[in-house]
C-alpha cells in the first residue's frame, strides 16, 4: 500500500509555558511512499523525522495536512484502526509478558470478524517468530533477551497482525556496530520477504543509503530531497544534503567562478562552463580527487592512510572550511608521503557548486542569482 503525505504540518506548544511560540516539528511535508518499498527517513536529530513517523502511525495528530493510505484518507483515523506496525526505538516490549505473549497481544486485540481462534493466533505468532528467527526464545521475558533479540521480537510483534505499513523508529541505534550491520541486512530480507511498505527513521546516512529503495532527507521539519540513495548522493540539491550523505563527508571549499573557470584560492582547478561569475561554495566528494602531478589543484599534504583497497589522503588548503581534507584514492595511485604537497585533478561529476548564502545547488546556465 502506498502512503501519501500532503502538506503535513505539526506544531508543538513551546516548552516554555509563558511564550506563545510554537515549535514547528514538521513543516508542510509532501511526498509519496511507493507500495512495497523500503524508505529511509533521514536527517539530523531534531529534524522532525520521528514526528513524521508518529504522524503516519496516528500517535500524533497533524496540525494541518493529510495522510492517505492508498485511496483512504486516514488523517483522523486513530492508530488502533490504521493497521500499521510500529517498532519503537527502545522496542517497548511489554516487560511482564513473555515474547510469545508480546507477539500475541496485537492479535488478541482484534475484534469482530477479524477475531481469530486460539490456534490461528498461535500459528500466526509462530510464523512471525520464524520470520525473524526467534522461535526458540518465545518463552523468555524481554529482559532475558539481548538487544538484537529484543529488536527481532519487536519486529515480530509489529508484523504479526500483517500491517499494511511497517514503521521503524531508529531500528538499529541501540545495537552495537557488528550487530547493526547484520540486522540491517536482516531488515532488508524481512521487508523483501513480506513485501510490506516499510518506513524507517534514522540519523545514520550509511544505514539509510545501504538498504533503502528510497531515501527522504529532512531538515528542520521539511523535505530537502528524496530519491534513490545513489541519485541523491550523486546529485544533491543543496549543501546540507551534500554534507549529510557520504562517509567520509564531502569536502567544502570557498571558491569563485571567473570566466567559466572554477577558482579555489589562486588556482583555476576546473573548467566551469556556463556557470555565472561570482563566489561559490564548492563541495568535492572524497572520491573526486585524482592524484596527478600535472594536475591543477594543489593541496598541502598532511598524511597518507593506507586502507588496503583504498588510500586516504589527508590534505590541507587555506580555502577549506573545516579541519582536514580527506581524499579517497585508489591504492594504485602512489602518493609520495614525504612530499609537502600533493596535486590533484578533479572529477567534474564529483564536484558540486552551491550558492554561498542559501546553500542551494548551482547548475550551469541557470544560476540562482
Amino acid at each position, binding site marked *: 500500500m502506498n502512503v501519501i503525505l500532503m502538506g503535513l504540518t505539526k506544531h508543538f506548544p513551546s516548552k516554555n509555558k509563558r511564550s506563545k511560540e510554537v515549535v514547528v516539528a514538521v513543516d508542510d511535508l509532501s511526498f509519496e511512499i511507493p507500495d512495497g518499498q523500503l524508505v529511509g527517513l533521514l536527517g539530523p536529530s531534531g529534524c522532525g523525522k520521528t514526528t513524521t513517523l508518529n504522524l503516519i502511525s496516528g500517535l500524533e495528530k497533524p496540525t494541518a495536512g493529510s495522510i492517505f493510505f492508498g485511496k483512504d484518507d486516514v488523517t483522523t483515523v486513530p*492508530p*488502533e484502526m490504521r493497521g*500499521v506496525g510500529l517498532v*519503537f526505538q*527502545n522496542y517497548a516490549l511489554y*516487560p*511482564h509478558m513473555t515474547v510469545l505473549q508480546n507477539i500475541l497481544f496485537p492479535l488478541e486485540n482484534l475484534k469482530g470478524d477479524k477475531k481469530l481462534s486460539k490456534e490461528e493466533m498461535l500459528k500466526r505468532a509462530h510464523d512471525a517468530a520464524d520470520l525473524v528467527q526467534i522461535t526458540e526464545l518465545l518463552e523468555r521475558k524481554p529482559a532475558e533477551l539481548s538487544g538484537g533479540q529484543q529488536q527481532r521480537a519487536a519486529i515480530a510483534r509489529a508484523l504479526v*497482525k500483517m500491517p499494511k505499513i511497517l514503521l521503524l523508529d531508529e531500528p538499529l541505534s541501540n545495537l552495537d556496530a557488528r550487530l547493526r550491520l547484520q540486522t540491517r541486512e536482516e531488515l532488508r530480507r524481512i521487508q523483501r520477504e513480506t513485501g510490506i511498505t516499510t518506513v524507517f527513521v534514522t540519523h545514520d546516512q550509511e544505514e539509510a543509503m545501504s538498504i533503502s529503495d528510497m531515501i527522504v532527507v529532512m531538515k528542520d521539519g521539511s523535505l530537502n530531497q528524496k530519491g534513490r540513495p545513489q541519485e541523491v548522493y550523486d546529485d544533491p540539491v543543496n549543501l546540507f544534503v551534500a554534507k549529510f550523505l557520504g562517509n567520509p563527508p564531502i569536502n567544502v571549499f570557498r571558491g569563485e567562478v571567473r570566466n567559466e573557470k572554477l577558482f579555489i584560492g589562486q588556482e583555476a582547478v576546473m573548467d566551469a562552463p556556463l556557470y555565472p561569475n561570482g563566489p561559490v561554495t564548492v563541495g568535492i566528494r572524497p572520491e573526486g580527487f585524482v592524484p596527478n602531478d600535472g594536475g591543477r589543484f594543489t593541496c598541502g599534504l598532511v598524511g597518507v592512510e593506507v586502507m588496503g583497497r583504498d588510500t586516504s589522503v589527508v590534505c590541507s588548503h587555506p580555502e577549506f572550511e573545516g579541519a582536514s581534507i580527506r581524499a579517497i584514492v585508489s591504492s594504485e595511485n602512489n602518493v609520495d608521503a614525504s612530499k609537502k604537497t600533493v596535486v590533484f585533478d578533479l572529477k567534474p561529476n564529483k564536484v558540486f557548486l552551491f550558492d554561498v548564502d542559501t546553500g542551494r545547488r548551482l547548475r550551469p546556465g541557470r544560476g540562482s542569482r
Partner: protein
Amino acid sequence: MKKSGLKAWLYLLPSLIFLGFFMVYPLVDVLVYSLEEGYNSASQTFSGVGLYNYAYVLRDPYFLQAVKNTFILVIITVPVSTGLALLISLGLSSIGKLRELFRTIYFLPYVTNTLAVGLVFMILFKKTPYTDGMVNMLIGLFGGKSVDFIEGPYWAKMFVLCFYTVWIVLPFKILILTSALASVNKDYYSAARVDGASGFRIFARITVPMISPMLFYLIITGFIGAFKAYSDSVALFGTNLNAAGMNTIVGYIYDMLYGDSGGYPSYASAAALILFAIVFTITVINLFISRKKVNA
C-alpha cells in the same frame, strides 16, 4: 574478609542494640506476660503459668466484637481505598491543566490531623438536639429517614468508620500511585494503542501489571494499617469504644492496659499476640500471592 565483616557488624551495632532494647526485649516480655496467669502489675506477682489469658481474651465478648469490627474494617476499606486511589490517580495522570492543584487538594487530608478530621466528620454525621447533621439533612432532602450515625445502629456507625478510614488513607495511596503511573514509560501505551488495544485493555493488560509492585505494597501496608486501626474509631466515637460497640483490637489492648476497666497487662499481652499472629498470617499470604502475581 573477616575484618570487613567485623566492620559491618560494628556499623549495625547501634541499631541492633536499639532494636534489641525497644523491640525484641519488649516482644519477649509481652510473650512472658501473656503466659503469666493472675499477674498483678503493682506487686509484680503471678499465680501460675499457662494459656488462661488467651482463653479469657478469646471468650471476652468485647474482644470478639473488636475482632469482628477490625475484620469488617479491613475487608471493606483496603479494597475500596486502593481501588478509589487507583481511579483518582488515573484521572490525575490523564488531566493536563490544573493537575498540580488537584494533586494538592487530594493530598490535603494526609497533612490534616486525624482528630481534626474526626471533628469534621462529627459535624457531618452527628445528631444533636439542635441539628441532625449535614448528611442527615441531605438524606432528608431526598426524602429519606434520618439516621443516627454516631450513636445509632451498628451498620450506620460502621459505615462512618469505613468512610472515615478510606478518607484518611486515600491521599497517601494516591501519592504513591500517581508517581508509579508517572514512572511507566509512555512508549508502552503508544505501542499498545498501535497494537489495537482498547482503553480498558491497556489499563488491565499494561497499566496494572506495570504498577503491580506498588499496588501490592499498598495492599500489604493497607492490611497492616487497617488491622492496627484505633485512633480513627476514637476520633469518631470517643474513648469508651466498648460501650459504643465500635472497639478495634488495638483499642481493646489499650483498654485492657489503661482504660476504665484496665490494669490487666496479661490480657492485653495475649490480645496483642493474637493480633500479631493475625497480621503476620495475612502478610505472609499477601507476600505469597504477590510472588506469583507481581512483575517486579
